[in-house]
């Protein structure tokens, strides 16, 4: 049985088509990423799969339970971590957790034991009696995740789990996700963070404008655009380097400045390396490092969604 099975699912808001006839399935124990830009339909998909919003067309099941006809039964199997840290600021961390447990009809003894375990796991046990309004963004996010796990779900929906978080919270959350998947919990993750999807997910669906553009493992997706090879180079005098000059080098089709490095896209990496070394000699600068890179998930994403924004030769993903 699939953990999630989506068949020709659509959602319209008046004339706006938020989701357009999407189909996919997620295996039990899989970490499945839903990658897309803002407004692509990621959160709408989660709202449909959790029964908050009814679909306009198509069906979705969670562990075989139809999300429209058997909403309550399907929800018992899932934990939901919404995009915003939707916790009650006027309650303590402990009260927030216990309230969520009561919504899932978890008995007093069990919810108290589970609550203690989760607060310890997320480093919040010492501050359990404090009202949440004094918590940092990262602490609130960790508490939200703890609330999503209070019912020991078989399937966890994570909507942008690490968006805008501090390093410590990011690491804790990623470690918890890894631990969950090792214990067979299915994770459905939406993100616009390509690196997060690359590091965390077994498979990724790239969604854009309500349609799924591609579904596969990150490595297979990358292999679909082998033409996007590149050479990453760092010079010792970055300010003296002109991107227009680099773009004129032999075999270079595109240049992106990434931090203190330049990424030169090409179909002939060895030819570009030779040209870069010659350029450095001519311009009296040193090459600090040079690497050839295969296509990244970001390249796939840009190619499939067409979300390239060019500003004075610098390309970024919106």
């Amino acid at each position: 049985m699939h953990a999630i099975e989506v068949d020709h699912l659509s959602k319209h808001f008046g004339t706006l088509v938020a989701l357009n006839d999407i189909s996919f399935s997620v295996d039990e124990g899989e970490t499945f990423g839903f990658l897309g830009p803002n407004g692509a339909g990621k959160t709408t998909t989660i709202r449909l799969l959790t029964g908050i919003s009814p679909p306009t067309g198509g069906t979705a099941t969670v562990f075989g339970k139809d999300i429209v006809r058997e909403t309550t039964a399907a929800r018992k199997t899932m934990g939901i971590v919404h995009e915003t840290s939707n916790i009650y600021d006027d309650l303590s961390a402990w009260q927030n957790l216990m309230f969520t447990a009561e919504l899932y009809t978890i008995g007093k003894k069990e919810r108290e034991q589970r609550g203690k375990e989760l607060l310890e796991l997320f480093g919040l046990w010492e501050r359990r009696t404090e009202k949440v309004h004094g918590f940092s963004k990262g602490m609130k996010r960790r508490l939200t995740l703890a609330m999503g796990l209070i019912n020991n779900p078989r399937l966890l929906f994570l909507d942008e789990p690490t968006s805008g978080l501090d390093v410590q919270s990011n690491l804790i959350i990623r470690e918890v996700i890894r631990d969950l998947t090792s214990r067979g919990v299915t994770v459905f993750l939406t993100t616009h963070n390509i690196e997060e999807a690359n590091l965390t997910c077994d498979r990724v669906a790239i969604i854009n404008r309500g349609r799924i553009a591609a579904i596969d493992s990150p490595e297979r997706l990358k292999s679909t655009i082998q033409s996007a090879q590149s050479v990453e180079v760092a010079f010792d005098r970055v300010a003296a380097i002109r991107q227009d000059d680099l773009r004129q080098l032999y075999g270079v089709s595109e240049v992106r400045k990434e931090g203190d490095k330049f990424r030169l896209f090409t179909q002939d990496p060895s030819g570009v390396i030779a040209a870069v070394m010659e350029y450095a000699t001519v311009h009296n600068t040193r090459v600090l490092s040079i690497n050839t890179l295969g296509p990244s998930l970001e390249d796939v994403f840009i190619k499939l969604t067409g979300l390239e924004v060019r500003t004075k030769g610098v390309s970024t993903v919106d």
Partner: protein
Amino acid sequence: MDGYGQLYAELNGAWAIAKKDIAIYYFKPNIIVSGALFPLFMFLAFAAGNSAGPSVMIPGLIAITILFSASSIEPVSIPIERRMKTFDRLISAPISLHAVVLGESLSGFLYSMGIAFVPLIAGMLIFGTPIISFAPLVAGIILTSFCFATMGTLFAAYPTESPGDIMSMLNLVRLPLIFISGVFIPIESIPSIGQVAAYFSPLTYGNDLIQAAYHGHTHFNPLLDVAMLCIFILFFQIFANQLYRRWNE
């Protein structure tokens, strides 16, 4: 889970929501103003220059206190929860929308029950207002409180994140109810169009029961009062459920 198990889950979830509201919202300043102080000032406005004694004024004060206090929690709490996105937590829990509506209404109901005791006790201790019959008083307070709490939940279904939007709409309904429901002016004394409108006001039936506790006679049959309040509660509950389903897509 069997039918009884699910029923228990629904009631348990509703009670959890009510407890959460009690902990968070009961002492918010805007709820104290609209739920407790507003009816007091309304009463004082009516009482000034009115020669009627406490036995006439106290039942009316209890009725309008219930009207305002019961319907004041959800129009504040639900828009705030929409803004904080905590409302999504409620509507994505493994309980039905009916249980969410019931839980929200329960908090308004309990708040109103507590506030209604203030004029009740004040009437007994300060003015010595005698209560002739307790049964209609208990039935009147319980059913009217629950009815207006559910009405507050119904209005709060309007998809806004601003409590002021809902309070404005609610006051358009609550204020006229005071005049057409026989609270301070007997139904017989109001214009005929008002008398017809009185039949459509739940406050008419709630006030009738409360007045009966103090005066021993009712405008309608007490059983009709009880039945009408139950019908209003059912109607508000079902209608609220439909609106939340439609407006939370």
